[in-house]
């Protein structure tokens, strides 16, 4: 049998979602006590953990310090058991380096770094289970963690992936859909202003379709925002009650 039917005639995807629907998102903030901020997120079966330290003094060589803003340092890693095939992934392999850089770009755009000159913010993200959309899950987890740490940001950074199958754009791809080999686009959005923090795609897609895919990804990112917003409010409410006692 060649090729799985990613989108049925009735408009259902393999896992029963419609084209624009997200997977179920569950998130928690403040999962670790020793870190400044931390968060855990589940998007369907993709699970990610983010920890934030800082802002603090520059560690290591002082020469890296920036005179006018904070240095954002991101590290990505994925657990050996995160994928179907068990595999040791040492720190500093290409994939995690790239992911770390992307995260850094994303958060440099979102964090108000000029408020903390000559200091450093560390964001560590670990993927516990990868079922498609790891970048998006990392960004969303990191956003929550940064908020938990109380670092001022312009806005939420909400990320979502989107793909293109049978001239229809699909939001929030799962691993099966990613593996099918169609074009995939990752978008990190500042939902309030609609500004794009990061847009990444490394497949060929006709420019006529780009707008459609982008639109789908942006809408999905806004949906993510609603969910994250609810999580943050819930967390704040709980924290307020604890503090009040």
């Amino acid at each position, binding site marked *: 049998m060649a090729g799985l039917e990613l989108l049925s*005639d*009735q408009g259902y995807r393999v896992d029963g979602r419609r084209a624009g629907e997200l997977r179920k998102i569950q998130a928690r903030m403040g999962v670790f006590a020793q870190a400044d901020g931390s968060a855990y997120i589940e998007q369907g079966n993709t699970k990610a953990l983010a920890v934030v330290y800082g802002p603090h003094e520059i560690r290591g060589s002082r020469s890296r310090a920036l005179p006018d803003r904070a240095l954002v340092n991101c590290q990505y890693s994925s657990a050996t058991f995160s994928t179907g095939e068990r595999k040791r992934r040492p720190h500093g392999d290409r994939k995690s380096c790239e992911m770390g850089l992307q995260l850094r770009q994303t958060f440099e755009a979102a964090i108000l770094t000029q408020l903390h000159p000559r200091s450093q913010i560390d964001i560590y993200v670990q993927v516990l289970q990868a079922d498609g959309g790891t970048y998006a899950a990392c960004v969303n987890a990191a956003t929550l963690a940064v908020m938990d740490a109380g670092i001022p940001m312009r806005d939420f950074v909400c990320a979502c992936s989107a793909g293109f199958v049978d001239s229809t754009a699909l939001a929030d791809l799962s691993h099966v859909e990613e593996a099918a080999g169609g074009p995939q686009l990752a978008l990190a959005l500042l939902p309030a202003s609609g500004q794009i923090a990061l847009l990444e795609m490394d497949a060929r897609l006709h420019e006529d379709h780009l707008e459609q895919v982008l639109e789908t990804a942006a809408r999905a990112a806004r949906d993510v925002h609603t969910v994250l917003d609810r999580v943050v409010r819930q967390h704040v409410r709980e924290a307020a009650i604890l503090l009040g006692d």
Partner: protein
Amino acid sequence: MQTACQAVQHQRGRRQYNKLRNLLKDARHDCILFANEFQQHCYLPREGGEPMEKWQTRSIYNAAVWYYHHCQDRMPVVMVTEDEEAIQQYGSETEGVFVISFKNYLDNFWPDLKAAHELCDSILQSRREKESENQESHGKEYPEHLPAEVLEAGVKSGCYVQGILNVNKHRAQIEAFVRLQGASCKDSGRVVGILQKNWRDYVVTFPSKEEVQSQGKNAQKVLVTPWDYRIPKIRISTQQAGALQDFRVVVRIDSWESTSVYPNGHFVRVLGRIGDLEGEIATILVENSISVVPFSEAQMCEMPVNSPEKPWKVSPEEEKRRKDLRKTHLVFSIDPKGCEDVDDALSVRTLHNGNLELGVHIADVTHFVAPNSYIDVEARTRATTYYLADRRYDMLPPVLSADLCSLLGGVDRYAVSVMWELNKTSYEIKQVWYGRTIIRSAYKLFYEAAQELLDGNFSILDEIPEFKDLDEKSRQARLEELVWAIGKLTNIARHIRAQRDGCGALELEGVEVRVELDERKNIHDLIPRQPLEVHETVAECMILANHWVAKKIWESFPHQALLRQHPPPHQEFFAELRECAKAKGFDIDTRSNKTLADSLDKADDPNDPIVNKLLRSMATQAMSNALYFSTGSCAEEDFHHYGLALDKYTHFTSPIRRYSDMIVHRLLMAAISKDRKEEIKENLLSNKDLEELCRHINNRNRAAQHSQKQSTELFQCMYFKDKDPDTEARCIADGVIYSIRTNGVLVFIPRFGIKGAAYLKNKDGLVISCGLDSRSEWKPGSLQRCQNKITSTPTGGDPVTFHLFDHVTVRISVQALRCHSDTIRLEIISNKPYKMSSTELCRQSSLLLKSELVKEVTRSVEEAQLAQEIKGKVIEEEYQEYCQSKGGSLYTLLEKIRDLALLDVSNNYGI
């Protein structure tokens, strides 16, 4: 049910699954897929160790129960399965949800559907046979084909070559070609596997009684002979063989085991008696996969009403939205006499600035037919109106095709118009406007009348109903107005035509090309059109409209416009034409369409007008067929239309009878709203879907052409059938030799429009010889074939030579066949032209006879039916005897054809 669908996908493979999907998609079947695995209450997780099938059955049953409760226990639900265990387990678990086998289901719920019962029986039987056969192990007749995975891998890696098999229609048992995909040419090869089978329904004939007896003991299995020569005999297991003897029957092939010489099939339904007109027509339809069931109630419900009590009116909203041309423009239509579906009308007027405005108004069918409505789906399936020799099968229901969409005279109609502003003297196009309009056609003219008016001959006036009730004065004024318009139109058309001729537009003889040009596929076509200038005028305006619309939709939607291309022909196909022309001393230059057109014009023998006609029809056959395509899947250079010499062309002007035109209308409407920056309401087809649709329409058009041709042949045969060729004068006619073969010649009979082969060597190896009185006889001897002549040398006689374009006298007779369509047989009885005092007269009315022929056959069939009703069984018995005595088997027939080794070129130009 989603689970069931998935089961089909996994167990039966992609092909079956796609079939099922298409059935589901078709709105006519009223089927809905319920995604039960995605439904909260219906989803059941698979238990550990539970087999797939069990889980599927459980899921389906669970969903059925849920649905039953969902409908508040009011509607009983039936689950059909062949799994005995499931029936046992769930059969009585829930009240109101029945789990039964299919046979049981039919028996209980549809006891009256006899056809379905028979179908079910025959499927069950053939399945049982298969099972029992699997247990016995026969010696294999054929080496097994490779499994699909091996094939796919092999094709990808290049160790196998993929191709399409075409079996020669005339020498089905020994000749076939494989058209390869990819250029690499191989000398010889072997079929290792089949990627896709092109099975359809086949019409077959059961063997007559004697043959059944000779087949002997295996009475349950019958070998039936398909109507199509190219299909081998099919083995069927049925008990009804005796009863079905005299009928044409539809069967379907189920499988072809490697252990068997013949494929296995099952019986589907009866079409009609052999030799009966209705039965034979039904045969032609099935063989071309044309299904023309009457329009269903659901489809008719979508149609607007126009009855005397409730007349249809222009709605005020539409009136606001459309441009109103009722008062301002003189619109009229020119069509064949008695035409009901008028889909084009014309107008011309002088504007205030002195320029001319030419308008082409086309019936607005898409206003009435919403995309994806039931009617739309039906029209898409039919794709075109089918014109057979004596009847037609409409694409749209008559309320649209003959009434609301037909631009009749004197009534308000919606139209889609294209209007050009032309310079008053140079006729140069300055501006063009597209849009929806309301028109009221003032005159519904027919071609002959329009021509008379153009020639200034006003005696025809009495035949135009619009002029009848007018007083003399207003009549004169209106007449002048109309005559001016027709005259102007003709001038414009002449001018445009000249432009196109300059680029090398072809004018070709032959019905096919005619049809393409002016879209009159009517039965009137069989009447030779006196080449009136009005025909050309109308055709030219239509071509102009098509051309401009093609440009417009291509500019607006460069990736998803439906256009029509006519690829330039291969030069080698012209070889025969050049040779033939050389025999007559003409030189045909086929390098480009322009030179071809010019040299065809020159190749005219003043003594014999048929020569030019034949040459033109040969040129037509050498060309490839014009095709629809989607612009997204074709390079822009390939858009060219060779025959019309236009860079872009589409079909826009006949939405009543062609589905492609409806698509083009929708595209044009979307293009207009795009120009106005409005949102495009309709979902346009994507390039992929459009390409798929084009393939379907092309396919259907081909089927329409074949069925039309086959039905004409059927009528020709029926016409000559009851005539005794030895006594009836009409069976002897004048023929022209237009091609030479190794053992005979191909002859064209202008009087009946028949083309066929006449053999110079018969089955016994005797050759033709002509005595002094030029009467022919069969004598032993030899044949010698040269480039453009063939000589028959009988031993002890004078040799006879036949040249190309020689006139000969032929006798027409019918070769009656039991299992196939009858064929016309031609016999040369003299090598001199056929002399008859009224030959000239005959030639003039040549094709007129053809339409008479149709009438006569229809009448005689009706009479025969009447007679049959009276005489009843007596005739039937006679008929049976008659049939049996003729029961020539397929083999003798094929042998004959093989011996004769003659091909009719008119039939295989598609290869």
